[in-house]
C-alpha cells in the first residue's frame, strides 16, 4: 500500500509535467471516443441514406433479374408474395416496382432512361421520392399519364412542368415498342447525378400496361420493423421468400460496398487507435524516463536501503498506472463533453456523395457505454505495458552509480 501511496504522490511532485502528460493521454482517449461515436453515426447515416432513399432494406425479385434486367423477369407468384408480406410481422412496409429501360423524348431531345413504375400509395413509405420533388407534385391527382423526371434530365431535354414527353419501352413478352405520351407532373432532385439524369417514374399501373406484364412487378422493396434484420443472414425471411424462382436479398447484397463499410470502419478505428496511442506512448515514455532520471539518486537510495529491483520496477509501473488513471479520468470527461456537444450540433455533410449515396442529413456522433469501458481499459493496459520498459530500466540501476559520490 505504501508503494501505491508513493507512486501516486510521486506523480504530483512535478504537477505541470503530470498534467501535461495526463492531457496527452486525455486528448488521445477523447479523440478515440469521439471518432468512434462519429464513425457509428456516420455509418448509420450512410446506411440510412442508402436504404431509405430508394433502395429499401431488402428486395424481392426474380432470380437473375438484378443482373440481366430483362423486362419479362417478373416476380413469380406475385399476389402470393404480396399477401405473405402483408401478413409478415417482420415487415413494416413494402412497395412493388417495375423496372425497364426505355427512352424519353421531348421536342428538343431524346434520352435513354431507366423507367420505374411505382405505387404512389406505398412508395412514400419506402423511399424519399415524395420528399425530393422540387417542382410539381408526387402523382397528385389521378392522371395516369403523369411522369416525374429528374432535374438534370429536365434540363437536358429542355422540359418544364406540364410539358409533354414521349415515353418508349419494349414490351416484355413481344419486344414490340410501346409508346405513350406523358405530362411532366413533377421534377425531382435526388442529389444523385445518375438518378437525376437517367431515371423517370410513372404510376405502376401505367408501367404494367406499357410493359405488358399484367398484375405483377419486377421488384418489391421492403422495410423491416427491426432494421438489424437486414444484416441477419441467419433469418428465415430470406429463405421464406427465395422460392419459386424468386430471390429475397438484403441491401448488403445489393450494395456490398456500403456493407463493407463496416469492415472499413473497424480498420479505421484500429488505425486511429494505433496513431493516437502512438502519441500517448511516447508521451508516457518521456514522462516516466524524465521522472526516472530526475530521481536516479533517490532510486539508488531505495536500492541501498534494501528495496529489491522488482520493488523499484513495481514503483515505476504503479506510477505509470497512476498517470494513466489521471489521463483517463480527464479523457473520459473531455470525450463525453466534446461528443455530446457535437452530437447536439451535428456535422453537416449534406449533399456529399459517398459510394453513390448522397448524404441527406447531418451526422450525429452516437455515444455508447462500451466506448467508456473498452477504450479506457485499452489505454490503461497500454500505459502499463509501456511502463514496463522504464520499469526494467529502473530495476537495473547500479545503486552505487546512481548515488555517485555518496552511497
Amino acid at each position, binding site marked *: 500500500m*505504501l508503494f501505491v*501511496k*508513493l507512486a501516486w*504522490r*510521486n506523480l*504530483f*511532485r512535478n504537477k505541470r509535467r503530470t498534467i501535461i502528460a495526463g492531457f496527452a493521454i486525455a486528448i488521445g482517449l477523447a479523440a478515440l471516443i469521439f471518432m468512434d461515436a462519429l464513425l457509428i453515426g456516420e455509418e448509420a447515416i450512410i446506411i440510412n441514406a442508402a436504404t431509405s432513399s430508394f433502395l429499401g432494406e431488402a428486395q424481392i425479385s426474380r432470380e437473375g433479374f438484378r443482373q440481366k434486367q430483362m423486362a419479362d423477369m417478373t416476380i413469380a407468384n406475385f399476389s402470393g408474395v404480396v399477401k405473405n408480406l402483408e401478413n409478415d410481422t417482420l415487415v413494416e412496409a413494402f412497395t412493388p416496382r417495375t423496372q425497364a429501360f426505355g427512352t424519353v423524348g421531348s421536342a428538343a431531345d431524346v434520352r435513354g432512361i431507366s423507367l420505374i413504375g411505382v405505387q404512389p400509395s406505398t412508395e412514400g413509405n419506402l423511399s424519399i421520392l415524395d420528399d425530393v420533388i422540387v417542382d410539381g407534385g408526387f402523382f397528385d391527382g389521378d392522371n395516369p399519364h403523369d411522369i416525374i423526371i429528374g432535374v438534370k434530365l429536365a434540363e437536358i431535354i429542355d422540359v418544364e412542368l406540364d410539358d409533354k414527353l414521349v415515353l418508349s419501352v419494349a414490351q416484355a413478352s413481344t419486344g414490340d415498342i410501346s409508346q405513350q405520351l406523358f405530362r411532366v407532373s413533377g421534377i425531382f432532385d435526388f442529389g444523385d447525378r445518375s438518378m437525376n439524369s437517367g431515371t423517370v417514374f410513372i404510376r405502376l399501373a401505367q408501367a404494367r400496361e406499357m410493359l405488358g406484364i399484367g398484375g405483377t412487378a419486377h421488384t418489391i422493396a421492403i422495410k423491416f420493423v427491426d432494421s438489424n434484420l437486414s444484416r441477419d443472414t441467419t433469418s428465415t425471411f430470406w429463405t421464406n421468400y427465395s422460392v419459386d424462382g424468386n430471390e429475397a436479398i438484403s441491401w448488403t447484397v445489393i450494395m456490398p460496398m456500403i456493407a463493407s463499410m463496416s469492415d472499413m470502419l473497424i480498420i479505421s478505428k484500429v488505425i486511429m487507435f494505433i496513431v493516437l496511442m502512438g502519441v500517448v506512448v511516447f508521451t508516457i515514455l518521456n514522462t516516466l524516463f524524465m521522472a526516472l532520471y530526475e530521481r536516479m*539518486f*533517490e532510486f539508488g*537510495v*531505495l*536500492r*541501498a*536501503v*534494501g*528495496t*529489491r*529491483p522488482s*520493488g523499484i520496477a513495481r514503483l515505476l509501473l504503479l506510477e505509470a498506472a497512476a498517470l494513466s488513471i489521471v489521463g483517463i479520468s480527464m479523457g473520459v470527461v473531455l470525450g463525453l463533453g466534446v461528443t455530446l456537444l457535437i452530437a447536439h450540433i451535428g456535422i453537416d455533410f449534406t449533399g456529399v456523395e459517398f459510394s453513390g449515396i448522397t448524404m441527406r442529413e447531418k451526422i450525429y456522433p452516437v455515444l455508447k457505454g462500451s466506448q467508456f469501458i473498452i477504450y479506457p481499459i485499452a489505454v490503461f493496459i497500454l500505459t502499463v505495458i509501456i511502463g514496463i520498459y522504464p520499469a526494467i530500466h529502473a530495476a537495473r540501476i*547500479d*545503486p*552505487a552509480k546512481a*548515488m555517485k*559520490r*555518496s*552511497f
Partner: protein
Amino acid sequence: MADNISEQIIVTEGLKKTYDETAVPVEAVRNVDLKIEKGEFSALVGPSGSGKTTFLNLISGLDTPTDGKVWLNGKLMSEMSGRELSDFRRDHIGFIFQAYNLIPVLTVEENVEYVMLLQGVPKEERHRRVLEILEEVGLSEFEDRVPPKLSGGQQQRVAVARAMVARPSIILADEPTANLDSATSGALLDTMHELNKKTGMTFLFSTHDQIVIDRATRVITLTDGKISSDEVRA
C-alpha cells in the same frame, strides 16, 4: 580469515577496487584488511579521493570488489546474488546519507517505517517502533510531517531513525554532518552515541568532520586507498 568472525561485524581481506572506465585505471581501494567489532563507534577518515566512499560501497554490497573478500555479519558477500544482497542490506545495514535522502512525498512516519515495510513487519508493530525511535531521536509529534517542512537537523534525525528502526547490525553513515551546523552536528552525534551505548549497535562513519572524529572510539585513516593508520581510543 580472522578467528572469531562472529564477533566482528565487518571483515575485509585484501579488498581491492579498480576503476578502469577511464584511460588510466584508478585504484580506489588497495588491499584493505579491516575488522570492525560489534558495538564500535568508528570513524573512517581521509582526504577527498582517499577511497572512503568506495570502501563503504564495497562493504555494504553496493559495489563489487575487483579483488578480495568482504564478510558482513559472518556472511561472505561475494556469494550473494543481487536479490540476496538487497535483502541482506535491508536486514543488516542501516544507511545515513550526507543529504538525508528522505523521500519527500512520504511523511516522517512513512519514511522511517519504509525498511520495516520491506521486512514485512506488521503495521501495528511498525507504528509502535516508529514512535519509539522518534522519541529516541527527539522527534516525537513529528510523524505526520513531510521532510520539506523539517530543518536539516530534523531531517537528519529522521534519517537516523530510519537507519536504526529496522534493527540492523551496523549503521553506515557517509558524512552525516556535512550539511549541518556545528551545534546541530554535535547534538546529532550525541544522539547517535547514546543509541550506540544503549543498543550496542555498531556505527561506522565516513567523515571529515572533527566533531565526529572527536566522538569516535576508533579512527581509521585511509590514504590513497590504503589504511595509513588505525587508532583505537579509550
